[in-house]
């Protein structure tokens, strides 16, 4: 039995598509460029635009030990792809069985399900067993299955190409601004509020501690200026975020503690979206609580200043729609 890419797909009346296939983790500006070309090619061909993407990501299944943390959850990734104007975003459940499909089998199933007239891929596209199928094979198969192939070169900012690994490298350095430059939007984390250390409250900085953040990349240790959306609100609340390692629990367990400025309410058990604006400083040791408290007051001033400097359309239209952020959303203690 040949594994099926689209087990539940009724393909009898599929429309013609201009398709792309990829992981699109982060849906960064390079991806956005490619997806934009898919949309215009679909318009030119009077076809639907479609994006096939994998969930989990192939590396997470095939080599989990080397698979890097993600930049977007699956749900956000699909929404961000759709926000580029793609008509149908189709996640393929990736398994070892799917990975064992030979290149022609893979293409045949895609063709039967979605009738592509054109397939648009990046130049590093590879598919099928052992990633043996490359863009040349995809193109040769186009003669058999009547589609054309357009290969899109990577784009960049003049110094380097946009890539997910560049975003990860930026986050690993705490450089959330350069990560945002490549993403074309601020980097954000989603999580659930759990009871954290009470220390923050005693210091006069009550924090909501995030957990269940999935496999997302967490920026380097330090203090960040951020905006937070609560589960119930459409507004964004200025926040000072502490990212660090939890010394009492496990050296490797990272903690994300959010101090929502001017917000006083019970968030326990609710979801938060934290959008990183800028880094205030790196992590630091303090001799005594008094020193820590005075530094935190300075951090808070700096955070307010950094958030005040954000442009009025921050974090951008796509994210506003996806997160359903209302107009005039920048509220709170400024």
């Amino acid at each position, binding site marked *: 039995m040949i594994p099926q890419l689209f087990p539940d797909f009724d393909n009898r009346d599929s429309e013609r598509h201009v398709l792309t296939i990829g992981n699109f983790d982060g849906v960064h500006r390079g991806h956005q460029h490619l997806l934009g070309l898919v949309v215009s090619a679909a318009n030119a061909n009077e076809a639907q635009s479609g994006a096939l993407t994998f969930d989990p990501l192939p590396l997470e299944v095939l080599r989990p030990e080397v698979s890097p943390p993600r930049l977007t959850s699956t749900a956000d990734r699909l929404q961000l792809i759709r926000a580029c104007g793609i008509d149908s975003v189709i996640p393929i459940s990736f398994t070892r069985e799917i990975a064992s499909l030979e290149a*022609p089998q893979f293409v045949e199933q895609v063709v039967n399900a979605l009738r592509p007239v054109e397939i648009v891929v990046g130049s590093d596209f590879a598919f099928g067993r052992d990633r043996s199928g490359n863009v040349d094979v995809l193109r040769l198969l186009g003669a058999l299955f009547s589609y054309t192939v357009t290969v899109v070169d990577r784009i960049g900012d003049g110094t380097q190409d946009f890539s997910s690994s560049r975003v990860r490298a930026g986050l690993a350095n705490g450089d959330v601004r350069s990560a945002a430059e490549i993403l074309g939007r601020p980097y954000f984390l989603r999580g659930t509020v759990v009871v954290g250390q009470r220390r923050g409250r005693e210091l006069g900085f009550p924090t909501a501690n995030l957990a269940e953040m999935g496999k997302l990349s967490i920026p380097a240790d330090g203090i960040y200026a951020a905006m937070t959306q609560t589960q119930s609100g459409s507004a964004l609340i200025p926040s000072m975020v502490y990212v660090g390692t939890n010394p009492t629990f496990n050296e490797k367990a990272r903690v994300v503690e959010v101090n929502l400025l001017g917000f006083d309410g019970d968030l326990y058990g609710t979801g938060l979206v934290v959008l990183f604006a800028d880094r205030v400083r790196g992590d630091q040791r303090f001799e005594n609580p008094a020193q820590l408290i005075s530094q935190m007051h300075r951090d808070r001033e700096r955070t307010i200043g950094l958030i005040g400097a954000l442009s009025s359309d921050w974090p951008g239209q796509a994210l506003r729609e996806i997160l359903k952020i209302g107009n005039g959303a920048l509220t709170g203690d400024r």
Partner: protein
Amino acid sequence: MDLHGILVVDKPRGPTSHDVVARIRRLLSMRQVGHAGTLDPAAEGVLVVGVGRATKLLSALSTSSKRYAAHIVLGMDSVSGDVEGPAVFGSSKVSQPTIESIGEVLERFIGEIQQVPPAHAAIKVDGQPLYRRARRGESVVVPSRTVLITALNVLDYQYPDLFVDVHCSVGTYVRSLARDIGEAAGTGGYLHQLLRTQSGRFRLDDAWSLSELERGLCAESFAQYARHPAALSDEFAAHIFSPEAAVAWYHGRPVSRLEQPNYAQVHAFEVGGFWLGVGTRSDEGEVWQPSLVVHA
């Protein structure tokens, strides 16, 4: 305005190589356009097009190597060795070669091999194009020729579909290679689709699609799309001529080689960077004889 240069085009399936030339002629509103190394209508990929004086240099490409991605369908023969001829389900053997045995088969084709061109090829025997005779149903003895395969790798294989990456010398018929690989594999086989991924130094990644050219190519934008004629060959040296030498050159007079390196040909430039053309070393080896002169 005189335009000279090389356009690296990604020919789609369908049009003839000459159709591509005709489109570029129309876009540039000029006659002097030609192509190197014909691709059959059904084949696709890198087609090198010369514009202006660069057409005179296209023959330099005819000696350079080619690279193809080929889709070979095993288990079947066709009379013409490709999909355009009638398919003949040949051997009743159903044993499907393993990837290992395919690898062994391919290894036998690496190096200098003897190849019989397909009967439908555009080569002539006794002054008659082979394909004419083949179409008349005449059986012709096609002489074999020596070609060089420098690399032959499997891109993907699932019986009956075999995808290979071929690095070969000019004049190699991938169609014949596909037929011979099929025979050696014991299944028969034919070339289903051919993609030229490289011609000389020009790669598919660097090629413009026809739709990109249709959208933007015109005489004014030519420089954005074209490569300098000197890009045609690595083997040519570049030489900057003194103003006096440039004047002599324009009059068709040879220019002293002095201590120039020992190349057979040279691209000549003015001090300002203007391309003067191509010089060929004289038999005595002392001067560059202008073999192609470009006028400002």
